[in-house]
Every structure is written in structure tokens, then in C-alpha cells.
């Protein structure tokens, strides 16, 4: 059976990477093992693949003394093996050959992210011969890891050349056939690597007449070609059980971004999606400009001192794993709770310390000493845990505070609520024009997002007069109207193709205004911010999956050609939560937040 363990792509990938770093043999932890050291050489693709999964410390634990970019100045380091992890491009191969000629390292373990061609392999052979370094090339591997795993159930194609496969690249009117072929090949290569790593051949479903269909056809072809060659097939071997070609095949649903353009523009209310929307969040790393202290600064005033801080939000972060899909007020409350429980534990440790100090001199208290020693030993051994807890609390306090500042300044709760109402077709209590014209609510971009969502979701297009009114209000608010141009075209095209997507019939339940979320001492003053509760409503992508998913197909992989975001991802996660034993993986050709997406729409709308 294709159990969950084999679906868990984060740890599978970590295992694959660690194996590669261990000179391509399985890594077994041995507490009294001799240290083995090596250097790691990667290109930017390799860096993007490794960094969300392995921290610098974990690299150190694997014996890596240095990690360097391929195209950088590198000095010879004698007597050290080098592990390479790069894409088999021409420039990279050239540089590797140069390394061989310059005798930089003692031995070379070459790992190619996606399969290297025979001719390029011969280029390396040539260079190795010329440098008399053939025996130094210890191992050569095709890793088939050309995709970036961000979460156990989420992956993106690539980061370095995402311009090549962006929504804009796929949808621009002036794209040539050859260019399209290249884009499709790039996407297919990554998807192929994904399934090789997963160890399973999927059943493919796609939306017709779209770029997604092109991807489906090519992927199918590539998979068949590989399977046909039974001896060299990548899908035979012990990763596959006997029941491979029966009902245990995973389902791949290829969806085109164009079926739903509102979700990427939507304002959101869950933690991870909010972080991605309002902060600089990228490959699981968030970069903050830390403001000095949590004092309430008057609206519009900027805190003086700003330090830059970066945090990695990884599978190891327990708080993140638990709350990344929670509504924001819940997150704030949980951070507070964690802080309180941490303080209690800290007090316990302090108390023990003082006990030890007092009774150390009493000779007759040897047995009492051993009791307290036991307590202290357990306190000491739990110290690393405590410190880690503190680190996470600090981290999330800072991140959540930064998010809250945006929410308050831009009134994002208002936008979220209003958009949910638009998307679910409930009656609106405020006029759209009012929100757009309100100088205190949101940036020009927020307003543009709101309007575009309205425009996309409305059954009846607004009259010319109304539209002019809206356009004027938007321009007055500082918006650039190019995205609207593109959306108009898109809407006209989509109308011809099929009915516009609808978003379900339930709405958010506002639970009234909250003056404070917690008692005194709370870091998070949510004054004036609505405590909105999300009610599960299936977004278009989720509804497509729901229709296709039979009881037997498990897991299901949803891949959006043209780009995706965390809102969609979270929606799928929530959808699958109720269904015992079923698993979903979400992937997309690129990951963008609303700002980045609007930029692409703007470029597309320029005439």
C-alpha cells in the first residue's frame, strides 16, 4: 500500500539529500562515529532545493565544512572530498571541468539535479582525462530532485527561472510555439522528477483546452517512454510494491490558473497565508524589519530604529506546524499561552537553583542532594527544550506582531470580510465605492485587489457609467489600471469557454469587535480588529478535486499550471482534514502573493 510515509515528500527529500551528502550511501547516525568531512558545491537551483529542508546546522551535522556556490571564486582545498549538486547546464559543466583541471579537491562526487545528457557527460569525461583526474571522480548520480519541497504536502517547481514559467510567460499573447515548448518542457521535467522521487506513476486528469492540458500530454508521454524501457525504468525496484499498477496509483490533477484569478488576489486571514501576503516570505524564510518595541505608535508614524531579522519557518518549528493554518486571532492567543507556560517552567528551574544553593553545605543532606540532583538533572536536560521553546516564542511574537501591524494599518480584516461576501454572493452592507474612496482603508494595491475580485466574481458586468465611476475612484486612490485591462480580456475569453467560477454559498461569521484578545500582559492588542471565524468554503480548485476524487485514489496531487498561493493550499488542507487516511499534495509552477500577481497582470494589461 502506498502508505503515508511514502507520500511525505519533505522527509523523503531530506533523506535523499542526506544520502547524497553522505557520499551516496544511506546515512546512519552513530554517536561514537568518527567525523568525516567534505565540502558542498551547489548552484542556485541546488541552494533553493536544500535551504528549505536542511539548516546550516544540519549541514554541519552531515560533516560539511564549507558550502559554496559553483560560480564563485574557490580556492584549492587539499585532501577534502567535494560533493556537487547542480543542474546539468552548459555553464555549470564548463565550470566543473575547470575545477577538475585546477585540481581543487581530492575527490569529486557529482550529483545532477535533473538527468544529464550523454554528450555533457562525455564533456566531463574529456576534462577529467585531460586533467588526469578520472579516478578522482568517485561517483556520478542523477538525483531527479528538480523541484522545491516547501512543506510535507506542498512543492513548487523552481525559483531561479520562475520568470520563464510564470503566469505572464504562459499567458502573454506574443508567445511563440517554440517558447511555449520550452516552458512546457521545463514544467514537465520537474513534474517527472517529482514522480520519480515519489516512486509512483500517476493517473493524470486535466482541464481541457488549457496550458494544463499541454503539460498533461507531455508528462504522460515522458512517463510512458520511461516505463516502456523496462530495464532502465525509474519506476521499478523496491520503492514500488506489487500493487503498483492497480488502484494505488496517485491521482494528478493538472489545473490551469485561469479557472480562478480571484483567489490569488484575495486578502486572507490564516497565519501562513498572511505572512506570505504582507511580509517578505520566501522559500520558508521570512525577512522582517524589526521595529523597536511593541509600543503603539500613532497611525502613520514610523518607528525610528529598524533592525533586519530573518527567520526560518520549518517543519521543526512545532508552533508553526500547529498554527500555520489557524485564523490570526487564534495565533495571537496561542503565542500568549506558550509564553505563560514557558515562564512557569522557567520559574521551576530557578526554584531548583535556589534550593541547591541553600542546602549544599549540610552534610547530613546527602540523600536530599541526590533527590535534588535527580530533579536538577532532569531540569538541565530539559533546558535545551526550554531554550528552543523560548526561541520559537520570540520568533512568533515578532512575526505575528509584524503581521498585526499591517492588519491594523491597512484594515485587512475589513477587506477580507468584504471579499468573502463578494466571492460567496451574499449581500454587501457597504458600497464598494465607499471602500475604494476611503483614504484610511488600505493601500492602492489593496483597493485594486478588491475591485478586481468584484469584477471577476460579478455575474453581471457593471454598466459603462458605473465602470467609469469605479475607474475614477481607483485612479484617485493611486491605482494603476493596467491589471483591469487584462482582467477584462480574460473575463471575455472565459465567458466564451465556460461559466465563471463560483465560490460556494457560506460566509464568514463575524463574532463582533474585540477590544482585547487576552488579559493584561498580552503582547497583542487587537483593539478594533474583528475576530473573524472562517467557515470552510471550497475554492474552485478544491471543488475540482472534490469532483474527481474517488474513494480509491490516494494520494491526490493538485498541480496548478500558471502559479498558486498559500490560500489555495490551506483550503485544500482544510478540505482533506475531515477525510481519514486521505492525503493531498499541492504544487504549482510558481508561488506568488497578490503583489507579485498584480504586477504580472499589470504587465499583461499594458498595450
Amino acid at each position, binding site marked *: 500500500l502506498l502508505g503515508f510515509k511514502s507520500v511525505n515528500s519533505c522527509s523523503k527529500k531530506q533523506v535523499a539529500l542526506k544520502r547524497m551528502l553522505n557520499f551516496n550511501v544511506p546515512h546512519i547516525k552513530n554517536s561514537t562515529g568518527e*567525523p568525516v568531512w567534505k565540502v558542498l558545491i551547489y548552484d542556485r537551483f541546488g541552494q533553493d532545493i536544500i535551504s528549505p529542508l536542511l539548516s546550516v546546522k544540519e549541514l554541519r551535522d552531515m560533516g560539511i565544512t564549507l558550502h559554496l556556490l559553483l560560480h564563485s571564486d574557490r580556492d584549492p582545498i587539499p585532501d*577534502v572530498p567535494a560533493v556537487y549538486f547542480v543542474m546539468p547546464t552548459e555553464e555549470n559543466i564548463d565550470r566543473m571541468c575547470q575545477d577538475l583541471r585546477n585540481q581543487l579537491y581530492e575527490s569529486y562526487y557529482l550529483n545532477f539535479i535533473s538527468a544529464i545528457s550523454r554528450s555533457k557527460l562525455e564533456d566531463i*569525461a574529456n576534462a577529467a582525462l*585531460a586533467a588526469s583526474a578520472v579516478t578522482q571522480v568517485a561517483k*556520478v*548520480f542523477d538525483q*531527479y530532485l528538480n523541484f522545491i519541497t516547501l512543506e510535507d504536502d506542498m512543492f513548487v517547481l523552481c525559483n531561479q527561472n520562475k520568470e520563464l514559467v510564470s503566469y505572464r510567460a504562459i499567458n502573454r499573447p506574443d508567445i511563440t510555439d517554440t517558447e511555449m515548448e520550452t516552458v512546457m518542457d521545463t514544467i514537465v521535467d520537474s513534474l517527472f522528477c517529482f514522480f520519480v522521487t515519489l516512486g509512483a506513476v500517476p493517473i493524470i486528469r486535466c482541464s481541457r483546452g488549457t496550458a494544463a492540458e499541454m503539460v498533461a500530454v507531455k508528462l504522460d508521454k515522458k512517463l510512458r517512454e520511461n516505463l516502456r524501457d523496462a530495464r532502465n525504468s525509474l519506476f521499478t525496484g523496491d520503492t514500488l510494491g506489487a500493487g503498483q499498477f492497480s488502484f494505488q496509483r496517485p491521482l494528478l490533477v493538472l489545473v490551469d490558473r485561469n479557472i480562478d484569478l480571484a483567489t490569488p488576489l484575495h486578502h486572507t486571514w490564516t497565519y501562513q497565508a498572511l505572512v506570505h501576503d504582507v511580509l517578505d516570505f520566501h522559500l520558508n524564510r521570512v525577512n522582517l524589519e524589526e521595529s523597536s518595541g511593541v509600543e503603539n505608535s500613532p497611525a502613520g508614524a514610523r518607528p525610528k530604529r529598524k533592525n533586519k531579522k530573518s527567520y526560518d519557518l520549518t517543519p521543526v518549528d512545532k508552533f508553526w506546524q500547529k498554527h500555520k493554518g489557524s485564523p490570526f486571532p487564534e495565533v495571537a492567543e496561542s503565542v500568549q499561552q506558550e509564553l505563560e507556560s514557558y515562564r512557569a517552567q522557567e520559574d521551576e528551574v530557578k526554584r531548583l537553583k535556589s534550593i541547591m544553593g541553600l542546602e549544599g553545605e549540610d552534610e547530613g543532606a546527602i540523600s536530599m542532594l541526590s533527590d535534588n540532583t535527580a530533579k536538577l538533572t532532569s531540569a538541565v536536560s530539559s533546558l535545551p527544550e526550554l531554550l528552543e521553546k523560548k526561541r520559537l516564542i520570540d520568533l512568533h511574537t515578532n512575526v505575528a506582531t509584524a503581521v498585526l501591524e499591517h492588519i491594523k494599518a491597512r484594515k485587512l480584516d475589513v477587506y477580507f470580510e468584504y471579499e468573502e461576501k463578494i466571492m460567496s454572493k451574499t449581500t454587501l452592507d457597504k458600497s464598494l465605492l465607499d471602500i475604494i474612496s476611503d483614504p484610511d482603508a488600505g493601500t492602492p494595491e489593496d483597493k485594486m485587489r478588491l475591485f478586481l475580485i468584484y469584477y471577476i466574481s460579478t455575474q453581471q458586468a457593471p454598466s459603462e457609467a458605473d465602470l467609469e465611476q469605479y475607474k475614477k475612484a481607483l485612479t484617485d486612490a493611486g491605482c494603476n489600471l493596467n491589471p483591469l485591462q487584462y482582467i477584462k480580456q480574460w473575463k471575455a475569453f472565459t465567458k466564451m469557454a465556460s461559466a465563471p467560477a463560483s465560490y460556494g454559498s457560506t460566509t464568514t461569521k463575524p463574532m463582533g469587535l474585540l477590544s482585547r484578545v487576552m488579559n493584561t500582559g498580552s503582547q497583542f492588542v487587537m483593539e478594533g480588529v474583528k475576530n473573524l471565524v472562517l467557515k470552510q468554503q471550497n475554492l474552485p480548485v478544491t471543488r475540482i478535486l472534490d469532483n474527481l476524487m474517488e474513494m480509491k485514489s490516494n494520494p491526490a496531487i493538485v498541480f496548478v499550471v500558471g502559479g498558486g498561493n498559500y490560500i489555495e493550499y490551506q483550503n485544500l488542507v482544510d478540505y482533506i482534514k475531515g477525510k481519514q487516511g486521505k492525503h493531498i499534495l499541492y504544487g504549482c509552477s510558481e508561488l506568488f502573493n497578490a503583489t507579485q500577481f498584480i504586477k504580472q497582470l499589470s504587465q499583461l494589461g499594458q498595450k
Partner: protein
Amino acid sequence: MAVDITLLFRASVKTVKTRNKALGVALGGGVDGSRDELFRRSPRPKGDFSSRAREVISHIGKLRDFLLEHRKDYINAYSNTMSEYGRMTDTERDQIDQDAQIFMRTCSEAIQQLRTEAHKEIHSQQVKEHRTAVLDFIEDYLKRVCKLYSEQRAIRVKRVVDKKRLSKLEPEPNTKTRESTSSEKVSQSPSKDSEENPATEEHPEKILAETQPELGTWGDGKGEDELSPEEIQMFEQENQRLIGEMNSLFDEVRQIEGRVVEISRLQEIFTEKVLQQEAEIDSIHQLVVGATENIKEGNEDIREVPHL
């Protein structure tokens, strides 16, 4: 799932060689590539640093092997004093501790020395960083191996502390009252243990007072493995007392057992009787109901009479 294409690479090397030969391309190594490689490689400076680093590692490895070899015996001593095999004296243990400490110190010093020399005459930042990291790894290795040592030492120390505690005859750390050697406290116990021989009570009390100062000394190798005659006698008497206590307890338990069995039997009988009575009660109930009806009818009849 990664694919090993090393063989493919070697095949490519052959292909290229053959092709180059055919084209008459002169290679750096030519056909004797392998020999040339060896030649190329030997004059390369082997790196003083690396070989010394590896030396330190092998030393630490020896320490690790040494500790692991004797670990079982070191720890296992107290549990089976009977077996000749695997019995280690304390002197031997001390020797191991000392040797290990010297070993650890030497390794640590070697690492420190390497650290100071590692950056001499090196201009490359990368090489410096690399060497620092290598030394960190070696130090970490030493730490991990030292942990073996400190773990077994901790077990040993704990054993000593526990033994001291037991030999003081302290029942609980909380009940400090019995610690004192005052005769009053000790003589209170005869009131509890009715089977006690009063004579034996006085004796242990004196013994306790005598032996207390001896046991008070800590970390003294003397008297650890052997018990003095007074202690032996004291323990024997304690044993006797305990046996007596156990026996009386045993009798009491037997008695209680008998009584419980009786009670359960009586309960059985009781249940039987109750069930028997149920049938009778039922029939009485019927009769009473019938009688009540009759009386009711009778009353009605009587009431009607004056109306006639």
C-alpha cells in the same frame, strides 16, 4: 529515487579515449593516463594538517575502544560479587579513570595545538574556514567519546552514594528521627514489635552508636567490601526480627482469608433464602390482593343494605 550513473561515466571515459585516439588528439595523460595521474598526484603536498588531524582522530578512536572494552566490567561490578569473571576492583577502576583522563587531556591539547597552527601560512579564507570546521568536528568527536567516560563514572559515583545511604540504615530521607543514636528512640521500638526479645534491642542500639562514626567517613576505601563482625551480628539480629514479623503477618493473612471465605458462604445461603422467600411472598401478595378485593365488595354490599 537517484540513479547511479558512475558506470555510465566510466564508459564515457572509454568512449572519449577511443575517440581522441582515433582523432589523434594528444592528451595530457594519453594512454598511460592512470600512471600519469599517480605521478601527478604524489608531489602534491599531502598537507601536514590533514595527516595530523587524522592522527588525533585515530587517538580518540583508541580512547573510545579502550573505554568500550572495559565498560561492561566497570559498570557491572557490584551486581554479581559472586562471579569471578568480570569482577573489577576499585583500584582497577581508578586506574581506568586516570588513564582515560590523561588520554583525554592529551587529545585536547593536540587539538588546541592544531588550532593555533592551522592558520599559519594560509592565505585562503576558505581553507581557514574549512580547517576550523574540521577541528570543531574533531573536538565534537572527543566530547562524544568523553561522554562515555563521564556516564560510567557517574554510575559509579551514584553506586557509592547509594551504598553509603543504605549502610547508614536510614529508611527514608524524610524520617530523620531514626538517624539519631539516642537510646530513647531506639527503645521505643520494642512497644511495636511484641515478639521482640528485649535483650536484642539493647544490643543493636549500642552497635549503632559504635558503628556510626565509622560509617560516617566518606570515600574511604576501607570497610566498603567487607563487613565488620559487629555489623554482621547486627544484621543477623535484624534478619531474625524481620522473619518474626513476616511470620506473624502471614498468620494474620491466613486468618483473614478464612473469615472472608466464611462470609462469602454465608452470603450464598442468604441469597438462597431470599429467593425462596420470593415465591412465598408472591403467593401471599396474591392472597392479600384477593382479600382486599373481597373486602371491598363486601363493604359495598353492606352499604347497599340500608337502601333496601
